[in-house]
């Protein structure tokens, strides 16, 4: 036994020594800002990045022709000018003073290469489908190019927000560290899988040198641990993915600077319109009247949402406020259900008018929201059977149309053409995302017209009409637009919340005092 104890001690000492001798993480200078994120970015190369963190961090490394501003309006970035020559040709003049991180100038050839690289099927870019209407890119000068489309398609302009990489950058980068150089405010310094991504400032950035020396994105998957790390002082900034219940504690115990800013992420209840009960518009309106969104936002979301009237938020240029709204009114809901032919069999008794299933993901907050909705609908005699699933299984069910009601959110809405994909009758899955099989010929016509019209003024009128129809027909019950919650040390200044959760304002963020 003494021998085994001896070996045990040796083993223990050896393990700890190994850990102690393992090179510690490449320490960052003290003036780097440390931001906590939930998951490791899968890709940073803008031709491949589809996950939120990959896209957001990538946007700090790469510039694009256009970029959305804090009001969600597209503004020129690399483009000096953008002109619509005819309804299917965009002419772009690039700025001539831009260089990649390796010192090479950024020219029209790089832009052409980036788009063509995505279109090349051999490169297996998941973004290839987004460019399917792009017929050709023509380089008309060292800094001039034209995008030719197959058909008039106004929403194409959204594709001009893609990050630009240098010509001849290899496809399919094997690791994020091999991501090609960009021309953005920060340069990729190090990528440690599963642990952190470090960026350092680009001292030659063409707008102006970023005030921050660098940024460390630390991966901390657990929400509680992110908060404890913040409390301990190891984190300077967190955006979203924070349990609303934790906010009061954070405010009281950490002296954090906390802000909730309006966003564009739209939370809704999806409805299966092929269901014999739910295809009745009176029932859908009753659902909308029976849900107390204000109470949900106040009590469960702790104010981190804004009650929504439709898919497009007030940030969207096509947003229409003058639509039918459905304030909480359980009495009206009961009345509508009676009119629809679903009377309460026993008045205030336990028997429901009908039963429906409600699918959601197994995230704790989503389940609490589902339970609260269940309770509210119970008050008007509708019984919900809440079923929660892990994301992939839930999403698979929703796409197959295997649901009565479900709750989900639309993220990153920029162009109102999203309505085509969600509500046009040609968008039933698998062609699009009209999962509830909603069909309205008038709306179809408007949505077709909207994408083929070039004038934004005309499009605004078209989409205003579409939003009014949707608010009447209620193929979705709108819930709220999520706010972007930012928790930061008071010494971190100039971080502006973007409605879509972008973190591009880190290029202007600065310290107001030495904090570390």
């Amino acid at each position: 036994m003494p021998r085994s104890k001896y070996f045990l001690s040796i083993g223990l000492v050896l393990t700890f020594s190994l850990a102690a001798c393992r090179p510690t993480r490449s320490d960052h200078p003290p003036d780097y800002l440390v931001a906590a994120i939930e998951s490791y970015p899968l890709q940073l190369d803008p031709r491949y990045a589809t996950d939120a963190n990959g896209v957001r961090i990538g946007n700090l490394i790469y510039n694009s022709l256009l970029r959305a501003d804090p009001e969600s309006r597209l503004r020129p970035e690399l483009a000096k000018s953008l002109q619509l020559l005819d309804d299917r040709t965009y002419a772009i003049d690039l700025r001539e003073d831009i260089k990649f991180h390796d010192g090479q100038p950024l020219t029209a050839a790089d832009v052409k290469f980036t788009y063509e690289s995505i279109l090349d099927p051999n490169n297996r870019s998941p973004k290839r489908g987004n460019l399917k209407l792009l017929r050709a890119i023509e380089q008309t000068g060292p800094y001039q190019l034209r995008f030719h489309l197959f058909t008039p398609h106004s929403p194409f302009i959204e594709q001009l927000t893609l990050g630009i990489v240098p010509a001849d950058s290899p496809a399919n980068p094997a690791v994020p560290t091999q991501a090609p150089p960009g021309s953005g405010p920060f340069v990729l310094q190090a990528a440690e899988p599963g642990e952190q991504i470090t960026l350092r400032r680009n001292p030659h950035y063409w707008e102006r040198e970023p005030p921050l020396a660098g940024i460390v994105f630390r991966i901390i998957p657990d929400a509680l641990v992110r908060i404890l790390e913040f409390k301990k002082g190891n984190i300077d900034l967190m955006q979203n993915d924070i349990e609303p219940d934790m906010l009061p504690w954070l405010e009281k115990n950490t002296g954090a600077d906390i802000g909730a800013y309006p966003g564009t992420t739209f939370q809704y209840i999806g409805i299966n319109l092929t269901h014999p009960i739910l295809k009745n518009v009176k029932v859908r309106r009753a659902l909308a009247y029976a849900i107390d969104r204000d109470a949900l936002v106040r009590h469960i979301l702790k104010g981190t949402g804004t009650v929504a009237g439709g898919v497009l938020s007030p940030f969207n240029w096509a947003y229409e406020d003058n639509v039918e709204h459905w304030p909480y009114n359980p009495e009206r809901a009961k009345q509508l259900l009676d009119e629809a032919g679903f009377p309460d069999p026993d008045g205030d008794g336990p028997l429901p008018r009908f039963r429906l299933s409600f699918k959601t993901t197994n995230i704790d907050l989503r389940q609490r929201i589902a339970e609260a909705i269940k309770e509210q609908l119970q008050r008007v005699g509708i019984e919900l059977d809440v079923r929660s699933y892990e994301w992939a299984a839930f999403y698979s069910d929703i796409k197959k149309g295997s649901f009565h009601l479900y709750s989900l959110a639309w993220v990153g809405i920029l162009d109102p053409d999203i309505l085509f994909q969600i509500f046009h009758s040609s968008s039933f899955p698998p062609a699009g995302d009209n999962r509830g099989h909603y069909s309205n010929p008038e709306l179809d016509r408007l949505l077709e017209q909207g994408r083929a019209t070039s004038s934004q003024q005309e499009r605004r009128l078209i989409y205003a009409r579409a939003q009014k129809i949707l608010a009447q027909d209620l193929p979705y019950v709108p819930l709220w637009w999520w706010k972007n919650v930012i928790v930061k040390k008071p010494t971190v200044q100039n971080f502006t919340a973007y409605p879509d959760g972008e973190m591009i304002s880190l290029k202007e963020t600065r310290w107001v005092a030495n904090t570390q």
Partner: protein
Amino acid sequence: MKRYLLYRLVLLVPTLFGVLTLVFLFIHLTPGDPVDIMLGETASAADRQELRQTLGLNQPLAEQYRSFLIRLLRGDLGRSLYERRNVAAMVSERYPATLELALCAMGAALFISFPLAIWSAVRRGSWTDRATLLFSLFGLSMPNFWLGPLVMIIFAIQLGWLPVSGRDGADHLVLPALTLGLGMAALLIRMLRANLLRVMGEDYVQTARAKGLSERSVWLKHTLRNALLSMITIVSLQFGSLLAGSLITETIFSWPGIGRLTMQAIAMRDYPLVQGCVLAISLSYVFVNFLTDLIYQWVDPRITYGN
């Protein structure tokens, strides 16, 4: 012994084949489509179809399985669907973190459990025995998702002795190893104490005492050694599960190990990565089992294999 080793090695092939086949079927038959997760909601059906084709996911399952096996025979675990990196590289990158944590957690568990179990058995019925049993009950009842944040709040936030999370210096190991080790120690205490008490009643222990051996000798040479034999199985099983990575503890402590990688791969239906992780985990189990057999023989030379 050599024959036995050879036999075990040969047996390894069908075992791994069976495990990988089952995992291949389960993960492909589970609802959820990597292409949907990858492209998000805004992609069209055509985009999805295209990507499915480029990733080879549109082929019949049998065909996908065939190409998976052919690649495996060539030693190629494929590339992650999302990160596009070599799966073998991703797994080997994460494995040291899990191994390090497993060794420390095991060390902590043995370090805590053995003295307490022996103490408890020697002084059966005393208040120390009761306190030890209470401690082990506490350890068994505490789930890691609760214990982890608790030790974090006490040792990292309130006392400020240790870091909260992440993998950096040796001090980062203490809290996750303690979290994993405590639950395991609780189990080991109960098992070892029971074994010791059982062996104490055996005739040969009485004989040893009758021979006039010192109490220390009776305990160390006769009781403990025999009680340890059955402990080896428990310890090796526990160690095997530690090497599979602890999903909850690795997630709570932001520990970049194989458990977190496996979970991420499953959640995103990253088929090649799931296969790679499962292969690594299966190999760990096989290796630990193999090691266990060797230890058995070392502890009890009467045990022979292959005859």
